[in-house]
């Protein structure tokens, strides 16, 4: 079961990005690339010879592998089609965010290693944003975890499925907070721009500039997986309907269909946001993350005050 889920996750990840790219192009009156384009890019990059700067050490070469492995591990603990994920028993939300942090640290160290100005520039900006985004993510996940009295994601999602649809104020606040965090963490507008070629404005892309060939392919693939990770996380927490509670083929197929529908809808939201908003000033992004943090705190309080029955 686990290898299947991991394989499916890794293969589907570029597709979500391709879907968003296609939608965004349509919203700009362009035909746009096929949703399969990210796959083609990965294939092309894997076929290319990687060029390593002569100032780079083993850290630079290792970073893409660490990043890829950590992101993949984080995703394997995610209830994707069924609640009973093989790794569920040993991972809770702290471990999940820990894996994501490991991936980010690898990316930042790898980008600093060659000593180019852009790597440093991108890493410092990423650090500024992630130092604000990560606590918000944790706080949001914890205030949801309080509902199920467990920080284990599978238990939490199982609890949500069992209790059925219920309007919880804490979930509304947390949804807004996590949407903002997911946007920033994936380098999306209005905090960052994935499609720019302007080195000086980049955050995530500035760190990636020095990698090439299969190294770049792994870094980009990790980016695709991170987007899918957040997509599934949001779908699991706020719209868990359709997740299979046991692994029969029919249930799994239904779960897959539901997941695709939810992700497609999320993709539409993302593409619309990106089409409507220009990039905000760099120093306004922390303001947006402060708002996200505030919303997460509100979610926590509304759980304690409104929903908590001792």
């Amino acid at each position, binding site marked *: 079961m686990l290898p299947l889920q991991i394989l499916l996750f890794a293969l589907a990840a570029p597709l979500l990005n391709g879907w968003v790219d296609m939608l965004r192009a349509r919203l700009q009156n362009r035909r746009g690339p096929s949703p399969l384009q990210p796959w083609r890019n990965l294939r092309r990059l894997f076929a290319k010879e990687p060029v390593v700067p002569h100032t780079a050490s083993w850290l630079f070469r290792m970073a893409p592998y660490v990043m890829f492995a950590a992101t993949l591990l984080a995703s394997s603990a995610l209830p994707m089609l069924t609640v009973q994920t093989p790794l569920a028993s040993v991972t809770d939300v702290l471990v999940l965010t820990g894996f994501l942090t490991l991936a980010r640290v690898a990316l930042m160290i790898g980008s600093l290693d060659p000593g180019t*100005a852009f790597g440093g*520039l991108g890493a410092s*900006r990423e650090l500024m944003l992630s130092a604000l985004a990560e606590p918000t993510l944790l706080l949001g996940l914890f205030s949801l975890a309080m509902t199920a009295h467990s920080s284990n994601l599978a238990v939490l999602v199982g609890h949500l499925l069992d209790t059925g649809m219920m309007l919880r104020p804490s979930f509304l606040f947390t949804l807004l907070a996590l949407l903002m965090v997911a946007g920033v963490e994936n380098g999306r507008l209005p905090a960052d721009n994935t499609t*720019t070629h302007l080195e000086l*404005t980049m955050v995530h892309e500035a760190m990636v500039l020095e990698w090439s060939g299969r190294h770049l392919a792994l870094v980009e693939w990790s980016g695709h997986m991170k987007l899918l990770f957040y997509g599934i996380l949001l779908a699991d927490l706020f719209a868990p309907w359709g997740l299979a509670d046991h692994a029969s083929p029919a249930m799994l197929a239904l779960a897959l269909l539901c997941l695709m529908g939810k992700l497609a809808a999320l993709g539409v939201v993302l593409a619309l946001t990106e089409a409507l908003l*220009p990039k905000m*000033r760099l120093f306004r992004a922390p303001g947006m993350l402060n708002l996200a943090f505030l919303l997460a705190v509100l979610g926590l309080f509304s759980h304690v005050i409104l929903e908590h029955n001792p």
Partner: protein
Amino acid sequence: MNNSPAWLQELSAWGTSSRMLQDRILLVTVAPEHWAQLAPEASVRQLRFAGLWADVRDEKLEVNACLARDGWYVLLRATPLDGTMGLPSWARWYPAADRMQRHAHDLWGVRFGECNPPWTRHGAWKADEAPLRTPVTPQERGRDRYPFATFSGEGVYEIPVGPVHAGIIEPGHFRFSVAGEDILGLEERLGYVHKGIEWLACGRKPAALLPLASRVSADSTVAHSWAAALALECALGIAPTARGVVLRGFLAERERIANHLGDVGAICGDVGFAFAKMQCSRLREEWLRCQHGIFGHRLLMDCIAPGGVAVDLDAGHIRLLRANHRDMLQRWQNIAPILTDYPPLQDRLLNTGRLSTVAARGLGVSGYLARASGLSLDVRHDRPQPPYDRHPVQPCLQQRGDVAARLQVRMAEISASVRLLDALLDDLPPGPIQEPWPPGMAAEGVGVVEGFRGEIVTHVRLDDQGNVARFFPRDPSWFAWPALEVLVGGNIVADFPVCNKSVNASYSGCDL
């Protein structure tokens, strides 16, 4: 000379001789010992520095400096003393003169002041050689260590960018000195697209000069070739045909619209607003395709000829063009309000990259850069040459001097120019498009044209056979680049691209 302004008479009193080259362009020959004194004298009379270039005439090196005010132009000419081969530098009074002096030093060997760091040379020949005067021994590039200005302090670091960029743009090197994200200083190093334009021009027939002038900077191809044609015509004292003149204005306005559309889209695209970028790209593309269909070239290259133009319009073309203008105006009026009224976009552009009126005046900028900073400078208005004498142009002014103001000026000019195009078509006189070219003689002339970036001043000198002996096109980018260094100060690194795009100086235009 009787109706010339007082400041002009005071300034020309410094000269040993003076003569009118043409309407409101005065040539004053001055003694080299007065050169240093002239800069402050001109500066207190609020003359704008409009260019500096060297020339060799009758085996004698001479330096021309162009100053301007109120549509008048003064060409100051001095011959450096034989022993020194140098003149005092004007950079203290006119900062923008610095790079033009260094360019003149690299190519002609004339020294300005004590210190002459390389600009165009890039170590491709020796420091004491001058390729336009003496034969040079080429050497491998990159031997010289370029003296960048350095900043020091805790946490101050440098970001070198270019000359190879991530996007498809021209090459240029930018050296940022940064503390955190704040830009402390920016220094540009250009010259990577040095093409030897000045050398290539020497010995050409007048008709062969225009294709070269067309290629000084491809986005200003009409304006540059018009300026060169004007200089030639003024030198020989002929007037282009009435139809030719209106068509020249028509082509120049079309060029202005195409470039402004591209710039508006690019400015919005640089802050991640892809909607505007795509819409403007589409409008520009349709505009260029129409030009390709009617004039045979998307960018209107080689459409201007000595004595007139090389292309003509028939009734069918005029019908097509009118429909094209109507479409453009309609679509533009759909898009333009979105850009001015959209808060997330304006939030990025307002107060970004401010160029104060004082700084703009001090650097001698022209075009949208000047008009966005509250300086009413527009050659079409200040020196209304045909066809603008019959179709007056009001400069589109803004006061703030930020990126939003430069965007606003461009947007206003797009609408104004589309209307002007229709007026020009209404006024298109019948007749020949080209004046026959007279036999050559030794003469010189200056052409001044408002390109889309601003004022282009072109100097042409012909030898006894009527061939080109000296050609110097002064692109407005000579002043826009220093202005960029000034206006990014106090901004953050991440906002540099949009500041740069709002200035949109040409690399090729000053890397002659």
